[in-house]
């Protein structure tokens, strides 16, 4: 059944509709929250709070809006409030670091694309995942929304309440910083 139909049923207080929505979004929402707060226990708590907020606010949800964006906006607001209370420093925008002044390509040697075997793929993902976890919150967020949730830039702009140009700028910087972090961990591009 379509999300819209579930939303309409939930507005009427249908618990089954909520169950279907939770089932549909549980992985994406939990992953998003986990990428933002990084602590599973906190992500679990925020996961519950988000769905309670959905129940509370569903009647004020504008049906012409995208439910995905609305849901992630609720989750984001809760996560940011949580971080502001518990770890305000984690919300700070990073200052211009030295790595901004030089292009990433200058530091990472170009190399031929080496064939990767299947066993190394999982390890590579762990490396990327760890490097991603070390990025500032706004960068982790834009990466997970773009690559893991496969949201369009316009949708990310809706969720994060910033202009499209800002989303693009964040996305570019997050990729550059991720690449820099990977290169710092694995000099010579060995992570690839």
């Amino acid at each position, binding site marked *: 059944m379509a999300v819209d139909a579930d939303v309409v049923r939930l507005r009427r207080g249908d618990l089954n509709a*909520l169950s279907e929505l939770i*089932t549909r979004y*549980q*992985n994406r929402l939990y992953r998003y929250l986990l990428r933002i707060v990084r602590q599973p226990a906190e992500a*679990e708590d925020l996961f519950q709070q988000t769905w309670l907020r959905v129940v509370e606010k569903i009647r004020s949800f504008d049906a012409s809006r995208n439910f995905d964006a609305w849901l992630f906006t609720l989750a984001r607001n809760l996560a940011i409030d949580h971080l502001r209370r518990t770890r305000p420093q984690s919300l700070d925008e990073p200052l211009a670091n030295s790595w901004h002044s030089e292009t990433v390509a200058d530091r990472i040697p170009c190399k031929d694309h080496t064939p990767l075997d299947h066993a190394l793929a999982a390890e590579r*993902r762990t490396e990327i995942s760890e490097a991603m976890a070390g990025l500032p919150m706004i960068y982790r967020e834009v990466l997970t929304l773009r690559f893991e949730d496969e949201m369009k830039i316009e949708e990310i702009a809706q969720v994060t309440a910033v202009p499209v140009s800002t989303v693009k700028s964040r996305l*570019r910087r997050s*990729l550059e910083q*991720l*690449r820099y972090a990977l290169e710092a961990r694995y000099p010579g591009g060995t992570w690839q």
Partner: protein
Amino acid sequence: MSDHDKIRELLALAAAGALTRAEEQQVAEHVRSCIACSNELEAWRPIASELRRLPTPQPSSWLVQATLARAEAKLTEQAERDWNRRVMIAVVAFAWLQTIASWPVFHFVSGRFGSLLEPQFSHTWIGFAAFTSLGWLAGGVAAVMLAIRQRGERRLA
């Protein structure tokens, strides 16, 4: 900034699939003739590719069940609140109706039905107004006390 530098800034976004069609065309045309940018774009691809394939952490079934249980309680609470609100509106409407309807009855019973067309401030009217005011005052106090109690219960919950 030269065209080359501009295109170079777009390469990460190109790998992320975040360019407009016009930008994509610009990049495609440029990398055909620029080996450095072509290599740079190729360097971005594995990062973008791996990011798309990161393992998805799964919430535990316990978490989903607990969330559903809490949400169910919340839905029930909301339904009760809505019901209470509807009942309150109905009671208030009924009270007003009864108050208005009781005027002619009151006059009829007191044998002064004719004075309804020419209301005067007699003892009867003052008594009736005092009685009505007292009733509404008591109702208001009860409503405020009920609201305070409900708020306290919600805070405890």
